[in-house]
């Protein structure tokens, strides 16, 4: 089971004490202090549609993603969620496998809303390039180290971040 393997590997990465017992964790509802900032949570696939929910601090992001890469996952998408009340933007990375051993992994990391910056994972997954560009332009996140961080979908000269919740056209 790749799920167990990956979970063990990741728990090794995070200090053991901080992993919470498996539970369906609803994002946003729970205040930030209840869910720790770093954890590997096994979720209920039937309700959520993914198996592992990994919360990682930005510093450990590349480490986590490299681990996922070593386990032959492919990158599905990167997106952001603007939690305006908490003043944070969450960036969500989806990974899955070309395999019958089903495992969908979601990696979440949060960054400050006003000064949003995250390390890029293009070094690990070349395919993250566009996803990061899109997230950058829609949410105004600076992906540090990205080779070509210009607007992807919006016109080259536009500097709006339309998917931020406080965006007014």
């Amino acid at each position, binding site marked *: 089971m790749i799920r167990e393997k990956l979970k063990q590997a990741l728990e090794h990465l995070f200090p053991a004490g901080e992993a919470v017992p498996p539970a369906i964790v*609803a994002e946003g509802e729970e205040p930030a202090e209840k869910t720790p900032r770093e954890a590997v949570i096994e979720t209920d696939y039937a*309700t*959520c549609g993914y198996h592992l929910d990994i919360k990682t601090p930005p510093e450990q992001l590349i480490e986590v993603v490299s681990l996922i890469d070593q386990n032959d996952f492919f990158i599905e*998408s990167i997106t952001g*969620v*603007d939690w305006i009340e908490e003043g944070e933007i969450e960036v969500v990375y989806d990974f899955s496998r070309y395999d019958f051993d089903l495992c969908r992994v*979601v990696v979440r990391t949060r960054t400050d809303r006003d000064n949003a910056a995250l390390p890029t994972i293009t070094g690990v997954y070349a395919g993250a390039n566009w996803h990061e560009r899109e997230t950058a332009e829609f949410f105004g996140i600076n992906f540090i180290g990205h080779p070509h961080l210009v607007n992807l979908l919006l016109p080259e000269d536009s500097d709006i971040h339309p*998917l931020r919740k406080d965006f007014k056209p």
Partner: protein
Amino acid sequence: MNQPVELQPDETFVLNVGPQHPATHGVLRVKMEMNGEYIVHAETVVGYIHRMHEKMGEVKPYPQFLMNLSRLDYLGAMGYSHCHALCVEKAAGIEVPKRAEYIRVLMVELNRVSSHLVWLGAFIMDLGGFTPLLYTFQAREHILDMMERITGARLTYCYIRFGGVSRDIDDQFIQSARDFMPYMRKELIKYHKLITGNIIFKKRMVGMGHISPEMCRKYGASSGVARGAGINFDVRRNEPYSVYPELEFEVPVYDGCDNMSRYMVRMEEIEQSLRIVEHALDQLPDGPVMPKKAPKIIKPPAGDYYQATETARGTFGVRLVSDGSQTPYRMKLRSPTYSNMHLFDEACRGLMIMDAMAMMGTLDLVIPEIDR
């Protein structure tokens, strides 16, 4: 014949392909740095038809956003609505009657056939053959007729509702769908004679446009691109949803990693879709097509939901972040062509422009679906 060439960077020029170009299937732009006819470096510029679907997902209530999914990918519209409906139903806990689910699958598969037919025609048109386009469009008209009788539209169906479908199918539809099967199989034989066997076509296909499995993984490619690289990956099988576990079909996989493999995968997918339709028609249960108490107002509990399906273009995913209100907090649409197109930049290096165009054709692009 895919020889690498010695490329001097100072002898290059930049060729701007698109946004209006016959081979880009819409408004895609590729800035190609060329050395003669060889591509040194290509940069894809997308976004010419970014229609704010994700923003609209955030501001519109769930039922009103339904029609957007058909505009996302107009060729395989049904598959996208299906994915969205499945995701919201999962989140809101809406039960779908069995018959409705079967009808959905029927429609999705018919739509997949029609989508692949457009791809085939447009692809051959990229290669310079015009007539197959008209043949495939003509075969497609049969499907559109059938679907129009039920759904009321030719392209943008808006047929799937949360909890079911808007209209039941009737005997005439079933009859015409059954009649369509032998017709389409005959047509496929014709296409194979006219296109697949053709020496000019073969020369342009076999061994051209190498996309390796590793590249697929790094870019997250799916559909024919991944299956043409020998990756046995189809969400309908790997991560079964809807009633697909009850239906018989095979996932065609070719490991040539070239244009021909991707082409053959799609051609066989048409056959497999026909098989699914046939099988679904046999197994079609009776019953209602909407649940008795279809919820008017949809309020999924707060949480993060993800659903992936296999659409005509590949793995489509909907990430729904709900805050418990009538409108989603965040609606992310993971489109398959986005990833498939992304790998074009890397895969086309060192190719001649005409081979690059052929390879672009095998990626099965629908530009609004990239840009969303």
